[in-house]
């Protein structure tokens, strides 16, 4: 009896969590006449992919999509290239104060940094460029990479690389050939987190990319919303397209979700 009630409450919570997303998906698949029918059509409608075709044939959304992929990927690769060695250095030659300082830069509210960063990028003629946004995202993800990877490196016993170094490996060689392969799962989870953060990010993208050629997907979707005549179908199709990669990423990193979201404090 008690267990049945528990299941019932959990199911209600699950439906509440999924219903808005499900509704968004149905709107993206409905003919225009069905989208706002009263009473609402939850299940029985003739599906169409016209909104998806329209959204991606217009060229603009394809562009936003590509921009999002480029900035998310490039900033993730850069953050890893800079952050992973730093994390290894801080793991093998600990300096807790510096580690915490690095973490604290991640906690700066975006609205505080965006004003000077905008002015600096304007000076450097990097507004409305994927390069500018990539640099900013790299800086944003870097503290996270350092902090997370340090906790993964801490889990690797030092004896392994020290043995290799006695055999004539350099420290860098030992890092590359012995330590790095051992932290691959952590490394991929960290990369996935960076991808999600960059993919979902809105405020910096909104301010730093205002031309169609540089906008990322969230900014492109937002631009639709604030227009007078909202194209609901195209907008929800773009929304669904934007959420698919994130859900795939998250599934891939499921095991480390808690560790990442709690900045490494809860191992999960």
């Amino acid at each position, binding site marked *: 009896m008690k267990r049945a009630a528990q299941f019932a409450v959990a199911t209600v919570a699950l439906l509440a969590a999924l219903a808005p997303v499900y509704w968004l998906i149905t709107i993206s698949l409905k003919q225009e006449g069905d989208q706002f029918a009263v009473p609402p059509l939850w299940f029985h409608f003739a599906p169409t992919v016209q909104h998806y075709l329209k959204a991606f044939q217009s060229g603009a959304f394809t562009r936003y999509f590509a921009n999002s992929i480029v900035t998310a990927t490039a900033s993730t690769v850069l953050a890893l290239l800079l952050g992973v060695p730093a994390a290894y250095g801080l793991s093998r030659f600990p300096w807790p104060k510096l580690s915490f300082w690095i973490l604290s830069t991640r906690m700066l509210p975006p609205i505080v940094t965006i004003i000077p960063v905008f002015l600096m990028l304007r000076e450097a003629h990097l507004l409305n460029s994927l390069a500018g946004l990539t640099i900013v995202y790299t800086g944003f993800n870097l503290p996270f990479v350092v902090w997370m990877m340090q906790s993964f490196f801490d889990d690797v016993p030092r004896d392994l690389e020290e043995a290799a170094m006695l055999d004539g490996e350099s420290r860098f060689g030992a890092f590359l050939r012995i330590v790095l392969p051992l932290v691959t799962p952590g490394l991929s989870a960290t990369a996935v987190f960076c991808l999600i953060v960059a993919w979902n990010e809105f405020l910096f993208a909104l301010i730093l990319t205002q031309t169609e050629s540089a906008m990322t997907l969230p900014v492109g979707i937002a631009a639709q919303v604030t227009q007078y005549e909202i194209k609901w179908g195209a907008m929800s199709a773009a929304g669904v397209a934007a959420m698919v990669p994130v859900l795939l990423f*998250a599934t891939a990193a499921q095991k480390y979700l808690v560790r990442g979201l709690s900045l490494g404090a809860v191992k999960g």
Partner: protein
Amino acid sequence: MKGRLPWIAPAMVLLLALSIFPLIYSLKLGLKPAHFERMFHDRLFHIALWQTLLFTALALIAEFVLGLSLALLIDGLGRAARLFRAGLLMPMLLPPVVAAVAWRLIFNPQFGVLNGTLKGFGLDTSHLTWTNGEGAALLCVVLVDIWEWTPFLFLLLSAGLQSLPQEPLEAARVDGASWWQTTRDITLPLLKPVVLLALLLRSMDLMRIFDQIFILTQGGPGFATETVSLYIYRTAFRFGNFGYAAAMSFVMLAITTVMARSLMRVMKTK
């Protein structure tokens, strides 16, 4: 020192360039008495600050209560727990812009599924304006945040519960303690560090709320859902007053710094 430097130097250069340097730039821009005098008299800023704090408090309390209840509830569900957990996380993973778009499709007074459903039951919905009405708008954006971020507290608390030592719980059960007694006297005290951590992480994010409100209401109607981040954004990027915007952002920085310091203390003791 020497061994460490080549490893960390490149990362440090970028971090300094993208966090410390902008901060100094910002101080130079905003640290002027005139700005602070204006802030002191700026009623709109006060409203935005008050609404941000109200929004943070309401959402945090609701998300914590719901997240903890769900975590305790699902912890007892055995193998099915995994499935529920995976599904419940969905809202938090979506791009915030997409989540807000989904909720526009719900709240819209003419086309939204909420009023559509009510109309289907024959109710008159002409006065139900949700995010378009001054009275309910703030509560609506709080509701959206609860939907989106309760999963975060749920996930952390749920993980915390799973990592608790089992012996004290077993001992209490053997002694005949009720579920409620065990939870109150043993589980929750043991869970305290995770609770603190989750609350601090969440409140720092709540204080800077921007994306969802930007999409849902743009701070309106009128000023009903304006928050500090939105007001600073408007001041700088719509009205071009970067100095004043930077000065206001220091208030955000101060509040965040206090929270971040407590957070670091929690993390250090773990």
